[in-house]
């Protein structure tokens, strides 16, 4: 286990920010800490880094206690905060050089590494420009460059795609994904579930300070949505079709909406669906298998929780 927490709890007065969190992240994993704003993600991250003290429970990152051995921990862990800020009047290079000095890197090594990370993040051209002139996307990349400067074993990213346009966000996520190839363990938090689900090996869903669901995206979909396979189809006429499809084995749910019909199934049963439609004498216009999105998992889960309550 690279990151391990046991019964981790943080209270701010009456408010419970994180409650009884048990997290276990393996080496080389990309783990997504997902949930809406204010659900305790950033607090968890700050506790992992020893930047805020837990009210109860224990944390181990790379086998180290953030309260006891913060220096050797922070030497190996890179952190990109949400809304990352730099010293605006200093250039990108100077900002990185300051971080290199804080990490006590020898000058020659620091120079080589700064050049390398700037190159990798595509910032070599603007290295000598003051950060004031940088766009949000450039700042974010500079933040990742800074994280890579210390060649970390673990990288913790808080809302890495916040405020980026969709293209820049995708590009940035690919950069994060590329860290996995180097054997770096990545923990990222986000409230944009659909954006990060593609790059996470495993996700943990937060709700009001608690980790309510955890696992692979497909497994979660299976567990919460009942069927991991969503099939959308358009067919005319629709009369009686819904009941027929509902009756198919493996179908968990069938519903009609404005765009047509959709089914949830435990397996990919598109051939059976097509046959059923044709047998009903309807014309099949389209038949698509949709991957379930985490947003739905999340929405459905809390719908059920509310119903149960």
């Amino acid at each position, binding site marked *: 286990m690279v990151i391990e927490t046991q019964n981790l709890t943080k209270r701010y007065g009456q408010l419970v920010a994180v409650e009884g969190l048990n997290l276990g992240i393996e080496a080389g994993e990309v783990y997504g800490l997902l949930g809406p704003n204010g659900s305790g993600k*950033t*607090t968890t991250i*700050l506790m992992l*880094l020893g*930047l*805020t003290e837990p009210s*109860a429970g224990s944390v181990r990152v790379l086998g180290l206690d953030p*309260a*006891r*051995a*913060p*220096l*050797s921990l*922070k*030497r190996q*862990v*890179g*952190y*990109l*905060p949400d*809304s*990352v*800020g*730099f*010293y*605006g009047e200093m250039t990108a290079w100077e900002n990185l050089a*300051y*971080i290199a*000095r*804080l*990490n*006590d890197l020898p000058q020659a090594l620091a120079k080589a590494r700064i050049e390398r990370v700037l190159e990798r993040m595509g910032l070599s051209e603007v290295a000598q420009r003051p950060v004031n002139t940088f766009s949000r996307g450039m700042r974010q990349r500079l*933040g990742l460059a*800074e994280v890579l400067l210390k060649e970390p074993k673990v990288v913790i990213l808080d809302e890495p795609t916040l405020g980026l346009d969709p293209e820049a966000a995708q590009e940035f996520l690919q950069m994060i994904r590329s860290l996995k190839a180097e054997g770096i363990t990545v923990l990222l938090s986000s409230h944009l579930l659909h954006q990060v689900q593609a790059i996470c090996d495993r996700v943990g869903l937060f709700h009001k300070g608690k980790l309510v669901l955890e696992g692979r995206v497909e497994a979660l979909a299976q567990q919460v949505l009942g069927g991991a396979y969503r099939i959308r189809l358009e067919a005319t006429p629709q009369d009686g079709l819904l009941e027929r499809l509902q009756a198919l084995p493996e179908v968990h749910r069938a519903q009609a909406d404005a765009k047509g019909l959709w089914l949830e199934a435990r397996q990919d049963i598109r051939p059976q669906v097509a046959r059923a439609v044709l047998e009903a004498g309807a014309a099949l216009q389209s038949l698509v298998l949709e991957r379930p999105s985490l947003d739905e998992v999340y929405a459905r889960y809390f719908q059920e929780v509310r119903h149960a309550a």
Partner: protein
Amino acid sequence: MQRSEKPRREGSPWTGLWAVFFKEMADHLSSTRMRILEVLILLSAVGAVYAGAQTLRQTVSEDSFLLLRVFTAAQDPLPSFIAFLSFFLPLAAIALGFDAINGEYSRNTLSRILAQPIYRDALLWGKFLAGLATLALILLALFLLVVGLSLIFLGVPPNSEEVARALLFLLATLAYTGVWLGVALVTSVLFRSAATSALAAISVWLFFALFWGIIAQLLAQAVAPLDPFNPQSELRQAEALLAFSRLSPNTLYAEAVQAFLNPGVRSLGPVLISQLEGALLGSPLPLGQSFLLAWPQLTGLIALTLLLFALAYVLFQRREVRA
């Protein structure tokens, strides 16, 4: 929380101190604030020397402490050099310190910096020392300018005792400046907004510069009321007044400067006639005796600086990283 073994932090709290120090110092020296302060330095040095030289040329009596007179002589409408310093340096210190910590919050850099392998100690110490070093640099520049200009204008080289006294005066001034840097550091931890922090620090300074004298008087009258039939009560009130006004760093500084720059000063409190028996009035004290005279004031200023720093330290250690 219970811990069986004694919790110990790993490594030195000074890790990264010099990186912070040099970065902050570079920031100070290249900032616009510094440009403004530099103009003020130049103006004040020229003004002080001009005033001093004008006054000194008009006096014909022999004076063995000519350099020290340059510091203390005032010529209407210009204030003396030390009067100017005691006005200008607190403002300079506040200008350098009021956004030390809240500036990191508002630029969103604090969590990024604290995620580096350093302790908060290093950040706070680095910022404080960088501010102090910058102020020392300003002071030294100002001092050398005044000494150099007065050499040109007056043509009398200072003797070694004058130089020693002038350097002690510098030390006291630095300690006094440190107090205001400490105040600014505390307000920069306390208040999230830089403007509020600057205003709060300046209010503290105004309080001591303008109001503390009046309040000390009122307190002294309350604690030791004057009895017209008892001359002892007069002395008691004077002593009470002195004790209260010495709670202000301004008083401590003024007294220390008086002792260092005016060798004729033999006491910083009320003196009874009986104590003056056998004294040669007006004859200068040796340097060592003047130093002893100002020793409590000097240590008081340094202690106050350390106390304020400690307060900022405790507040900062407990502050959440998140805004």
